[in-house]
């Protein structure tokens, strides 16, 4: 479980996050939704320690992030897997080497054990016989899958996914969404997905926070979101004519 309490963050004089509080539950796919520039990515980067919040606290289970010593913080980061918007696979490493990277860096596993773990992770995301290819030789969807394989290689307790299906066709996007949900349940992880894709929200949104202009405007689940009364969220959901007609 990850708890954020009263998080605020500014860059120069612009306040990006305003007093955000939320509980991201274990074993569930937690979604942060909102328009582009609403502060979703900044909140996530605060949570993984890439940015320091100006105010507020972040708790990973009972560990307060700001109170951790550098060594403890490093240890915590090894419990975090992250899927970046652009996959962020290392260009100079093959698929296999990308997935093996955190294992080689932080464990003392033998070569055979590493190979076994890498193949298990790649099989889990349906990447087969692509071990020697480089990221530039893969499609966008495959890159995302490899990135998921790398993110789960160290069996993380917390998985962050920054717009996992951006740039993907609707079919591949749903495959990636389902994969994230399956993995979350399988490993009982605390998964946080940032998205502005309503298909994803309705597909995997078990615990949702809606951010608008840096503020937490609504929390709930996919079953409640279509009947929402909050104007900003309503406008966000029913922006397309298709959904407007569906509602009518």
């Amino acid at each position: 479980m990850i708890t954020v309490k009263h998080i605020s963050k500014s860059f120069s004089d612009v306040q990006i996050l305003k007093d955000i509080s939320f509980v991201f539950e274990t074993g569930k796919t937690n979604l942060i939704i909102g328009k582009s520039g609403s502060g979703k990515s900044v909140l996530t980067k605060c949570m993984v320690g890439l940015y320091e919040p100006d105010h507020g606290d972040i708790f990973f289970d009972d560990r307060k992030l700001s109170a951790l010593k550098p060594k403890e913080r490093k240890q915590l980061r090894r419990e975090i897997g992250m899927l970046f918007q652009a996959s962020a696979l290392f260009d100079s490493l093959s698929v296999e080497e990308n997935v093996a990277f955190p294992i080689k860096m932080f464990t003392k596993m033998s070569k055979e054990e590493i190979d076994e773990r890498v193949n298990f992770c790649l099989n889990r995301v349906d990447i087969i016989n692509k071990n020697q290819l480089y990221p530039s030789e893969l499609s966008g969807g495959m890159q995302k899958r490899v990135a998921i394989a790398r993110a789960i290689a160290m069996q993380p307790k917390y998985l962050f996914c920054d717009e996992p299906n951006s740039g993907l066709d609707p079919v591949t996007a749903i495959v990636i969404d389902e994969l994230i949900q399956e993995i979350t349940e399988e490993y009982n992880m605390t998964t946080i997905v940032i998205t502005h894709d309503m298909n994803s929200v309705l597909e995997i949104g078990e615990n949702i926070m809606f951010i608008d202009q840096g503020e937490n405007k609504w929390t709930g689940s996919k079953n409640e979101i279509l009947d929402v009364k909050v104007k900003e969220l309503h406008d966000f959901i029913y922006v397309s004519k298709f959904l407007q007609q569906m509602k009518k």
Partner: protein
Amino acid sequence: MIQAFGKYMVMLYSIFLKPEKFSIYWKRFVDEIIQLGLKSLFIVILMSGFMGAVLVIQTASVIESAWIPDYTVGFTVKQSMLLEFCPTIISLILAGKVGSNIASELGTMRVTEQIDALEVMGVNSVGYLIGPKIIASLFIFPIVIMYSMFFGFLGGGLVCFFTEIIPVEQYIEGIRSFSEENFGYVRYALIKTSVFAFLITSISSYFGYFLKGGALEVGKASTKAVVYSSVFILIANYILTQLILI
């Protein structure tokens, strides 16, 4: 300016933090030796050979007095190559080749969130990405410059052999003249090269690592890396010459 210097110093400090796994850093070090040094060897040899050749022709063409012995040409080539051409000019060439390569590599990694990915994993990204580059350049650049010296002299020798502008024996005698001082000159050149190697890799890494923006900024960072590295090489060249030679 002060903020940039502070960030640069913090970056250098981070390089010396304990590596997560020595074997992985060692592999990076070897890769960087190949990338920064061995892949630059061809251009260095080519440039040095032609520099030596041109120096012989120019020096021979301005020495017309019968009172000046032919071996003066070899001596002049030696002094020019050892003291200035090999360490400084070749380092400026390397600043262009290696500096832009480092800045664009790290800049692209920043833009595509690969550096963030390392940080999230708990890897000291500065130590992992920049540390091996700096250490590898400190190791390989002096070797590259020694190759440059050899091929510079060889270029001059080939011109003497093929054009008979001066006898080859006289050229070699010039190269070997005042041999008790040669070791000092080589040492001076290698000290300069080591300082230049550090400046090229650390300054270029700084511009790439702290890049903000997109593809356009990668190009700008690459240009800045070359310009700043070159300027600092020239300044360091003056200071080191003053300190060591005088």
